[in-house]
């Protein structure tokens, strides 16, 4: 199918197009030159409307063990009907959406790609089955490495060669896209009732520190030339005073160099950007973190913006989840995943009148406003900060000072003392928010065909009912309405959303990275055999074959 999107006003920061009247052509799922399109082309006229690439979410827990356990744990979530079937599938869920709801809701706000950022490798078959049941969007998953016994062992030995082999072996077995770390060392310590407090605590049983785990893995990922860098959830998440650990962690990237992309992506930084020594005097460390990130060219971050209202926190950071459960006294579920990792789940409500929640909300926005647009991506760390369906709300907050003022009036006034948000007058331009929701996340992930509209890019195009050359940032209602209801969402050349409603269902792809050409698994064969003596799964049954995936795309590293 070929498609001609006519007379739109294109904003495509990657290709230097900042509001030009242009036509876009899509053929066979790719963006092409006009000359390649024949006569049997469908034309849609979008005169004067904003035309951009499909959104890319680089961090949303959309599939796998945690979200599924969360769904079982919270039957009350399923009372929220988002969409009756109307010929497609029914979609329910307030903060824990069902798989069809995830695909539809992303498409409904103009997103066409989302990455599941935390999969225990032993559960990866299930993760892929769930990813495959999410319609429309393209996806990928990042296996968890930060608390895995072989990783500790190779980091303790400073053996980058073996670490490379292990990473390549895991990516092949899991059909994973990159390397995710969650509270490196902390989850292992939790198995003995503890945690690590910073980069230099010793991980029990292995004589190695989080600092060594992180740097050895960065070295391995860089040598393997993976498209995506190490994706890190820092130590000390959700603890007042943790911004110091975060800054120290970000500085670890200074030792490494990559001309094409960052060497470290630090995720949901809002949860790692607090000053103070207790919940009574906590404040925002966002300004200092923003200064540091802006001064470096090999680190990127995403926001982890909390949204006032219901959320369900779920992370592989089990010690933190236990503390949260004690703090908010909500129901709790813990998961220990053999030698690999762990997880915890706790429902949460972010209340605007709670000083702590208000500071969290303001801290995320400070980061979103102060960090350079090419170094930060929009995220809620779904469903930890709230549903991803709030992205239009977040983007509107970034674009409109007036909207922020209105929302700040609802929040606890402690934010005036503890954060810099009330004094920030900055309003993000359309180019900047398109950068933060498309270009930056695509570049962070190393997805060359995502996030832009150049020839050869994926045919994922969104049309919003807003004129980028002539809009009023104080009329935030109009901006929010436009972002929540795209005129069109086009996925791979197919129209899937029209006037804010899903009209078609296509099947997305699952990307995975094959790094086997960069290394050999021979050097870790004996280690793997030894390792599987302590596992409930035999080595020959471990992982998932490519044929099991619905629509896999193999990307060769290097």
């Amino acid at each position, binding site marked *: 199918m070929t498609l001609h999107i006519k007379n739109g006003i294109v904003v495509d920061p990657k290709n230097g197009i900042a509001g030009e009247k242009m036509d876009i052509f899509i053929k066979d799922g790719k963006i092409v030159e006009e000359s390649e399109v024949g006569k049997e082309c469908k034309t849609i006229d979008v005169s004067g409307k904003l035309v951009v690439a499909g959104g890319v979410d680089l961090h949303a827990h959309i599939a796998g063990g945690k979200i599924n356990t969360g769904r079982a*744990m*919270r039957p*009350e*979530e399923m009372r929220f009907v988002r969409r009756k079937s109307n010929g497609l599938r029914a979609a329910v869920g307030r903060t824990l959406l069902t798989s069809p709801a995830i695909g539809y809701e992303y498409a409904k706000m103009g997103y066409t790609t989302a990455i599941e950022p935390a999969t225990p490798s032993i559960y990866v078959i299930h993760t892929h089955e769930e990813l495959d049941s999410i319609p429309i969007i393209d996806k990928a998953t990042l296996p968890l490495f930060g608390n895995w016994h072989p990783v500790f062992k190779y980091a303790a030995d400073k053996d980058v060669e073996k670490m490379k082999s292990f990473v390549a072996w895991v990516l092949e077995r899991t059909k994973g896209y990159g390397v995710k770390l969650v509270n490196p060392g902390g989850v292992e310590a939790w198995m003995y009732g503890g945690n690590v407090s910073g980069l230099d605590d010793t991980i029990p049983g292995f004589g190695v520190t989080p600092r060594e785990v992180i740097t050895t893995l960065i070295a391995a990922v860089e040598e393997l030339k993976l498209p995506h860098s190490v994706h890190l959830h820092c130590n000390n998440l959700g603890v007042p005073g943790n911004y110091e650990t975060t800054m120290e962690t970000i500085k670890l990237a200074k030792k490494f160099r990559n001309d094409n992309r960052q060497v470290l992506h630090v995720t949901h930084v809002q949860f790692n950007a607090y000053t103070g020594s207790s919940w009574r005097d906590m404040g925002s460390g966002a300004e200092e973190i923003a200064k540091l990130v802006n001064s470096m060219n090999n680190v990127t971050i995403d926001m982890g913006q909390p949204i006032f209202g219901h959320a369900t926190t779920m992370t592989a950071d089990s010690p933190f989840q236990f503390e949260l459960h004690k703090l908010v006294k909500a129901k709790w579920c813990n998961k220990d995943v053999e030698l690999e990792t762990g997880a915890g789940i706790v429902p949460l409500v972010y209340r605007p009148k709670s000083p702590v929640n208000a500071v969290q909300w303001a801290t995320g926005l400070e980061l979103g406003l102060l960090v350079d647009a090419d170094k930060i991506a929009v995220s809620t760390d779904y469903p930890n900060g709230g549903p991803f369906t709030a992205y239009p709300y977040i983007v509107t907050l970034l674009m409109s000072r007036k909207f922020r003022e209105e929302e700040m009036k609802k929040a606890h006034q402690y934010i005036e003392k503890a954060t810099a948000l009330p004094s920030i007058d900055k309003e993000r331009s359309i180019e900047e928010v398109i950068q933060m929701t498309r270009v930056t996340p695509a570049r962070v992930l190393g997805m060359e065909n995502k996030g832009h509209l150049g020839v050869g890019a994926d045919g994922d195009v969104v049309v919003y009912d807003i004129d980028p050359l002539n809009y009023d940032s104080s009329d935030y209602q109009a901006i929010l309405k436009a972002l929540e209801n795209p005129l069109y969402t086009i996925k791979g050349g197919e129209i899937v959303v029209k006037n804010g409603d899903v009209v078609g269902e296509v099947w997305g792809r699952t990307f995975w990275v094959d790094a086997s050409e960069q290394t050999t698994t021979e050097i870790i064969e004996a280690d793997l055999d030894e390792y599987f003596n302590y596992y409930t799964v035999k080595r020959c049954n471990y992982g998932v074959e490519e044929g099991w995936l619905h629509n896999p795309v193999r990307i060769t590293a290097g």
Partner: protein
Amino acid sequence: MIRPKVDFEVNVEAEITPELATKPIEEIKQFKVYYGNHLVSLDELFEVEKNGSEEVLVLEGDFSRVKWVGVGMQSGEIIVKGDIGAHCGAFMKDGRIIIEGNADDWLGAEMEGGEIVVKGSAGNCVACPYWGDLEGMKGGKITIEGNAGNYIGEKMCGGEIEIKGNAGDFIGTEMKDGRIIIHGNCGYVGGDMKGGEILIGGSFELVPAFVKTEDGFVGDVNVSGQGKVKALK
């Protein structure tokens, strides 16, 4: 006035509220309800009569298999001359429901306001939250002249429940606020109670995690609760 035409073989799900009574008779008759898994019009199952235009629904006959009557109602009155099925008055915000017979389970579940009076007895889970939710009844009043079953006022956050007869086990479990008055006897009371008040006229069993004070008991200490369980004077 609504009256069943037949004895129902399966449950009916009828989300009727007093607002319906103000509509033209034809619209009332065409109101859709579920009979088992069939979507049917109200007048296929019930005789429907319209007297006046007040916001009052009168249900006459055996409604014990009719569920969700008065769900989320915001005003007006429902009078049930007979028994009523499960989930009656769930999510109710205001108005009044008077049940002259007995009520089934989930009476006034997650109710926010208004009043429910049961002349007979009620089933289990009166004023409860639906499974998984953190907040049960938040406001309003439920009066039960007869007895009530187990799990009364679980996770209750406000409002009042008065039971003139006896009640079962697990009263006020995880209760946060509000008041439960039981004139008769009941079983276990106050597990994981965080706040609110339970007043009991007859005998009761207290979970062990309560501290005796001058005028009753305070607990549940396991959750640092400040709930009060007292004898009804």
